[in-house]
């Protein structure tokens, strides 16, 4: 847990109090945070992170693109002062309002009161919530911008790309037309701290890049695809994200990687025509397992549906999350133990925030002894995760009889036909949605 900065690396590019020129007239003015190990509660990092902020100088003034986390404001201002005066700053672009990039904003606005803020059209409410402006201090000087909007610095042009939900509603990217630099915000970023700063100089950060995507961007895959459509046609020399290495060597590789990571691989393999139901269960004495098998058999009768059956006890959560991401429907079986579903079920359900579950179909079942709360609790959680639960859960008291196993098969068939009724084009009745 020793700070990495204790030993100033001989090959350091980012040095205290100095900015780093990453393209003609474009400077990195960010901050290094080498001792950080946990970010936003949900992410880990083995060597810290950086808060990248940039300055662009034109013949007609200076633009600052994003700021840094509040604790690192001193580093940021020292680096600004090494390349610009505050009275030259005309423009402050905020690609993302999360506090790791806006912590130093109030102080920057105080030092450069003439500067105007440029935020995405989706960011107004967020900006007001962040700065909580006082009415008597006069209105905030900001402008909202969308795809294709430009602001000029004389010989330099900043052009905006509207890329919402990467990973907040307010996010956007900013493109410096003349130099082919994309200031991408958290997109293409990673938590990786290296004083060598440039992707072709620093250590191997591919793991950190994929990990960041998996935890931050993955829930927003369709928005990533929309953003890539705007980004891919741009002539690009450098991608300058808000965290981690600056991607100046073959920047397109990272765009390609985002496209790969955002494309569902399972669908490619089994074909888009086929639908998929995954059944997971936990079972202490085999009753819920017997139910699961019968549900599987019933669902399998539906043509065009691939059904998979797994005992949660036998696997790790992560690959199961991948499976669920590319499935159309998820059925979970749990016995009721002490008035609740069992922990592996909750562990699985609480790991699903990294994928988009919206509209996936959910169903719950399980054996119980006298109260049987588990099934209803799983259904409620599924609804909370924005899944639809059109078929009411199935409970069996203790050991299933042959008749009850028939009910399980019928339950499986009902789930299967609810999946099939989601076909495009058909008019669905509201009551069917559950």
């Amino acid at each position, binding site marked *: 847990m020793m700070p990495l900065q204790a030993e100033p690396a001989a090959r350091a590019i980012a040095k205290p109090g100095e900015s780093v020129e990453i393209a003609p007239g474009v400077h990195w003015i960010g901050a290094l945070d080498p001792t950080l190990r946990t970010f936003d509660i949900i992410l880990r990092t083995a060597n810290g992170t950086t808060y990248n902020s940039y300055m662009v100088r034109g013949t007609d003034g200076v633009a600052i693109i994003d700021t840094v986390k509040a604790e690192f404001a001193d580093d940021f201002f020292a680096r600004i002062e090494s390349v610009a005066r505050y009275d030259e700053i005309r423009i402050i672009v905020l690609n993302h309002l999360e506090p790791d990039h806006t912590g130093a904003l109030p102080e920057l606005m105080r030092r450069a009161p003439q500067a105007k803020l440029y935020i995405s*059209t*989706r960011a*107004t*409410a967020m900006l007001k919530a962040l700065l909580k402006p006082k009415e008597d201090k006069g209105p905030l000087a900001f402008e*909202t911008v*969308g795809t294709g909007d430009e602001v000029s610095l004389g010989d330099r042009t900043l052009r905006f790309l509207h890329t919402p*939900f990467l990973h907040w*509603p307010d996010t956007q990217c900013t493109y410096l037309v003349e130099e082919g630099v994309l200031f991408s915000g958290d997109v293409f970023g990673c938590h990786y701290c290296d004083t060598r700063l440039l992707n072709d100089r620093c250590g191997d950060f591919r793991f950190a890049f994929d990990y960041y995507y998996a935890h931050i961007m993955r829930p927003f895959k*369709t928005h990533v695809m929309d953003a890539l459509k705007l980004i891919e046609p741009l002539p690009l020399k450098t991608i300058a994200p808000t965290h981690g290495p600056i991607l100046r060597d073959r920047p397109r590789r990272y765009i390609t990687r985002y496209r790969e990571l955002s494309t569902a691989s399972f669908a490619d393999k089994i074909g888009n025509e086929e639908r998929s139901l995954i059944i997971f269960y936990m079972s202490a004495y085999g009753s819920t397992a017997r139910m699961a098998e019968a549900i599987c058999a019933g669902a399998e009768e539906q043509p065009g549906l691939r059904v998979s059956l797994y005992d949660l006890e036998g696997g790790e959560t992560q690959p199961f999350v991948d499976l669920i991401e590319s499935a159309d429907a998820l059925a979970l079986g749990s016995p009721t133990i002490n008035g609740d579903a069992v922990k592996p079920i909750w562990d699985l359900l609480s790991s699903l925030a990294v994928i988009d579950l*919206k*509209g*996936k179909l959910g169903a719950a079942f399980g054996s119980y002894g006298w109260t049987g709360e588990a099934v209803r609790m799983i259904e409620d959680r599924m609804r909370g995760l*924005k899944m*639809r639960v059109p078929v009411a859960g199935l409970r069996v008291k203790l050991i299933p009889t042959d008749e009850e196993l028939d009910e399980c098969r019928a339950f499986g068939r009902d789930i299967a036909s609810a999946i099939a009724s*989601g076909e*495009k*084009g*058909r*008019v*669905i*009745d*509201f009551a069917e*949605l*559950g």
Partner: protein
Amino acid sequence: MAKAKITFSDIDQTVNVPAGTRIIEVSEKIGAGIIYGCREGDCGTCMTHVEEGWNNLTEPSVLEEKVLRENMASRHDRLACQAQILGDCKVKPA
């Protein structure tokens, strides 16, 4: 009860709903691409573009108008957590 059809053009699905249902209630269950935040007409996250049947939704409230303005809504945008469906319409995420 009067019924109305709402089509979510991003996923090409149509649902027959009781008149008065809010767009959010349907889009969430069917899995359309509209995203939600506060669910009470404050955050603007659920902005939805109405492609057809603009007049078949309840009128926006003063508060909704304000949030739409703040989020630079275009002319036929609504908040899905506020607008209630009165007749046939077609929507997609804004």
